[in-house]
């Protein structure tokens, strides 16, 4: 507390400096550097691959340190519900998602103002009531864990996110590229971050009209052939306009979907969420991206320790992972139908392993009781009577194995 106040005082005393030279981080330039890295990668590829350059997996056995640091994931939504997930770091080996941190008390605190409590949900998620935070005040997050350790973030300025102008897309030779476009007429945002939720329609290869229920074959009442499923952004999408003469983001690439992806077999929708960032939040995200997403090149910058804006109050040396920022959320959704895309784009069959089998009547109970194999249709003899059923494994028949048959309410 004391330290922060001192810092704020110094800052307030500072005389204003021309903004032109204050912010020097350029996305365009970062892109240049990325390309440089990429080029070097290819250089190695072309000149030296012939000569034996190679990439191999590397798993040193030193990475077994017993560490258990608090991880804070989420942001303070100044215009809606805030969701924060608390968890702990785990050792590197394995791919399981670390369990959430339960029984913590989480508060949003206005500088010199009220506190808003977040309610514990499941798996380390804590959610607030829908809030309208004051755009000219600063906020922070306070956490008290179950073992009575106290954590607090720095007070952060509340950024107002400009609306998304459009989500555009282009069918390129090898896939569908989706872009975000936005601008801030007030020229104040400069740092942007995006997240997205994708949803698409899909079908299983076999349309089932029969169902095994209550130890007998009946007509299937619900269509389990057509479903929806979705995914979230996993990469860090950030851009800065600080080097541009206008605060305009033109065609920032959000995601590229390969032309043979099942996502665009029928109809695809993406909800892009946009957040204004402070310079510090942007830099944190950029470093995180560099540390964990950079392409492996000859000339990689050294990975750097990441210091977020959250500290343990009783032990300032304890690492705490995460950067809390405060922003409003702007969203925009688009749909892309198959018919809008090049007709020659073929789709990779995600069910290519599926095959239809036949089940004789005498085997019906034995085959279908487990629910792992589902009936598809009748097999009739020449006389037109049922002598058995075609069948396939559950995931080849019932799309609910991978998605949901509940049509999303936004689906057009």
């Amino acid at each position: 507390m004391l330290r922060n106040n001192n810092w704020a005082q110094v800052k307030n005393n500072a005389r204003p400096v021309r903004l032109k030279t204050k912010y020097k981080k350029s996305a365009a330039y970062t892109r240049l550097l990325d390309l440089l890295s990429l080029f070097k990668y290819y250089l190695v590829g072309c000149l030296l691959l012939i000569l034996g350059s190679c990439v191999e997996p590397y798993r040193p056995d030193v990475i077994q340190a017993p560490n258990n640091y608090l991880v804070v994931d989420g942001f303070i939504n100044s215009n809606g519900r805030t969701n924060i997930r608390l968890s702990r770091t785990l050792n590197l080996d394995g791919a399981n998602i670390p369990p959430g941190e339960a029984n913590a008390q989480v508060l949003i605190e206005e500088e010199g103002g009220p506190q808003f409590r977040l309610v514990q949900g499941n798996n380390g998620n804590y959610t607030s009531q829908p809030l309208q935070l004051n755009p000219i005040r600063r906020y922070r997050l306070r956490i008290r864990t179950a073992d009575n350790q106290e954590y607090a973030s720095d007070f952060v300025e509340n950024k107002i996110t400009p609306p998304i102008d459009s989500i555009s897309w282009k069918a390129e030779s090898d896939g569908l590229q989706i872009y975000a476009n936005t601008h801030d007429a007030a020229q104040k945002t400069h740092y942007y971050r995006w997240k997205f939720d994708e949803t698409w329609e899909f079908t299983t290869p076999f349309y089932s009209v029969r169902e095994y229920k209550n130890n007998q074959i009946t007509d299937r009442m619900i269509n389990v052939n057509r479903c929806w499923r979705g995914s979230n952004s996993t990469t860090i999408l950030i851009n800065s306009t600080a080097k541009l003469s206008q605060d305009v983001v033109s065609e920032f690439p959000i995601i590229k979907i390969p032309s043979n992806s099942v996502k665009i077999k029928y109809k695809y929708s993406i909800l892009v969420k946009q957040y204004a960032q402070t310079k510090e939040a942007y830099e944190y995200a950029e470093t995180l991206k560099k540390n964990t997403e950079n392409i492996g090149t000859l000339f990689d910058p050294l990975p750097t320790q990441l210091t977020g804006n959250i500290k343990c109050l009783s032990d300032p040396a304890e690492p705490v992972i995460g950067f809390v920022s405060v922003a409003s959320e702007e969203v925009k959704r688009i749909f892309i139908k198959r018919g809008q895309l090049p007709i020659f784009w073929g789709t990779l069959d995600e069910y290519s392993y599926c095959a239809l089998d036949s089940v004789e009547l005498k085997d019906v109970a034995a085959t279908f009781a487990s629910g792992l194999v589902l009936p598809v249709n009748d097999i009739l003899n020449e006389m037109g009577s049922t002598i058995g059923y075609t069948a396939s494994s559950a995931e080849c028949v019932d799309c609910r194995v991978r998605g949901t048959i509940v049509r999303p309410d936004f689906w057009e």
Partner: protein
Amino acid sequence: MAQFYRVLFFLLSFWVSLSAAQGQVTEAKLISGDFQNLTFESFARVLENKTGYRFYFDPAQVDSLRINLLVQEKTLPQVLEQAFKNTDYRFALDAHQRVFITKGRELTPNLPKDFFLGSTPNTPIAENTAPTPNRTAARSRNINQSELKVYQIGQGTATSDKANLAGHIRESKSGEPVIGAAVYIESPLIGTTTDQFGYYSLTLPVGRHEIKIKSLGLKNTRRQVQLNANGKLDIELEEDITPLKEVVIEAEKDKNVAGMQMGLEKLDIKTMRQVPTAFGETDILRVVLTLPGVKSVGEGSTGLNVRGGATDQNLILFNDATIYNPSHLFGFFSAFNPDVLKTVELYKSAVPAKYGGRLSSVLEIATRDGNKKQLAGSGGIGLLTSRLTLEGPIVKDKTSFLLGGRSTYSDWILTKLPNSVLNQSKASFYDLNAHLTHEIDDQNTLYASGYISRDKFKLGGDTLFNYANRTGSVKWKHIFNNKLYGVLTGSYSHYDYAATSERNPVNASDLTYSIDQNQFQADFSYFHNAKHTFDFGLSTIHYNVAPGSLQPVGPESLIAPDVLDREKARESAVYISDKFDISPRLSVNVGLRYSLYQALGPRETYQYAPFISKTTSSITDTLLFRQGDVVAKYHGPEYRLSAKYSLSDYSSVKVSFNRMRQYIHMLSNTASMSPTDIWKLSDAHLRPQVGEQYAIGYYRNFRANTIETSVEAYIKNMHDFVDYKNSATLLLNSHLETDVINAEGKAHGVELMVKKLTGKINGWVSYTYSRSLVRVNEAATSDVINGGKYYPSNFDKPHDFTLIGNYRFSRRFSTSLNFNYSTGRPITLPLARYFADNAMRVFYSDRNAYRVPDYYRADFAMNIEGNHKVRKLAHSSWTLGIYNLTGRKNPYSIYFKTENGRINGYKLSVFGRPIPNLTYNFKF
């Protein structure tokens, strides 16, 4: 057989000298040994070494005499009596330990006691009297005659008892100056070595002397002089085309022990050619990397880390002009054409006062002067590059030129590749050298040289990168008199890079950076007397840096032009040093350099709130400086001390202390050198780097100086060198001080080396133990890395072992084997994973807390030459090599990335399998 005797002789003389060192006081030394088929001259030398007596004889008289003798603990007269048995040679000994050999009649060396009262003869009674052509020797009559002719130096009679002899040593075939040739007389032992111009200056007692000259790869020669007063003697040396099977290279063979310099590594092109490289072409930086104390972060990187210093702490001088980026193609080639090179000198510890401006080392690369006698050329054709050099006289013996060029055809290779991204790519480079030497008269020589290197590369029709070095230098050497000469040098260095991106019209931009350096210096050498040699001079450098500009390209581009203010500065220095030979055993070199640095306006600088980390939010004020204003000033003394104490003829101890100051810093966010690294001048916030090094070394030669061994240890402190805050932005940053921190560094190490540069088997073995540590702890501003403790620098590799071995089967066929082991370099490793933003992320360890796997590599090369007929239109050779013989996948880079929600670690090896190469070299 001849070799056997030579070895026997070496062994004998070695053993003899050892025993001589033990008991010099003994009056009547006893002689033992087996002397078989020795010439009398060699025999006399052995006895001289053994007994301390001095032999005087006419070589022409004794040339037919062969000594075959086996003696056991005999006195000198007994031995001589036995040796001259049944011959008409006579000997006589006098009280001054002199032995006179005559044919036919005996001398009476001791006159009646009252014959001369108190006067000793100035010259021996008989010393090579009556020079006559030696018919039995195989050498040309010319040379032999000049060896035996007595040169009268100076007019009239001597006015003092000492006089100075100076001149140039040149190679007779090309007229090139011979650097580092030893010029000496044996009694009393007074000697020197020629400097970079082939110039020597000796102060000798007046009288009759035999001057001996020895140099690497050239025939040893001698001159008889009668020194009356100060005078000149230019000497030409013949190339050593030995008709015998073995080559004996004797030049400077005791330099390791007798030389003043410590921490100096000198390589000539012959040595460098033998070291195998990845692409078959001789690469000087690759060879320098095999020397003890020199490391790099990895393959494909020419950044040198000398004794724990950073890659920007090396002053790379190419014909006196500074080179900022010494590499082509990301460091896979060095930017120097091997055919034009003469010598490469690396100063690691006792840096002469003449040099300054970098903390760790000076790498001085000199090209040849060009053939002064006839037109000649050389070249090579390799798998990736080709080169051609032409040289010759413009005015015979007065003016010569040297032109060299080198280029690659990787562009062409790229277009042949089936991948569409790759065949739209470009990767090309070239370098050009031009050098002109003009001898105006005896006193004045003019040298001019120019150098250009350029690299271009582009990936799949997107961003085009290019970078270039341009340097030029003009040097005027004036000899004022025998004892004093001066060199005026003006040089210009330029380095720039540009990145042009035109793919997306909205972001189309052009990023450029450049640095210009104009330097003027005057260096003088004054050979005061046999004991003192002074070097003094002054220099001034003017820097002009364009630290970055980003410009839109095309009308659609939204890129806002951003041009950082130019940075200008002046660095001046004066220096003086004295090489003082206190006694034949002890000599010291005391030097002082004082440097002054001024950062000049116009410039805008920010002021920051005190006691907190510098960030854009802690700016309190902006100061504006006008043209010519001094923005910041730094100055300080730089001490250069070194001393040598000879323990015996074969061993010595040297110590040195150095302080260096560096005002220009390279900023690079990557571990190796890359073309977008920027050079930044010290300013109001970025203090100059200051480094101190203490070094001690023990040197010992074995087997008649054919095997050199050395142990050197050092401790080094570095203050205010540049490290970065985490995720620093270095490009187009007008307030770099907010992203960099001044760090403290310390390094220490021990270097062991055994070197044999002669014989069928030659090469060197070196082992280095060294540490290089960094600390960032500015508690006042909370800029702390790793809790403020020392941590290993990026290039801290404690153990390093190198073997360079060559075996010559015959004069035309030789092989080389190169072996290299070093500890893996430090790395920051991921320690834990966590889930955030829908993906698994990584939490990294403290900076450089772990190491990559050890580095290990073996290379092999074969050199096959055509016949060695002296008169032949063109000489050619083939070099066939295999780089990374064992195919070990040495890690170049280790990185972790998140893929499909999992964290995967990868190891990238650049040369992951044996790489064959083939080069054709020619010379005409």
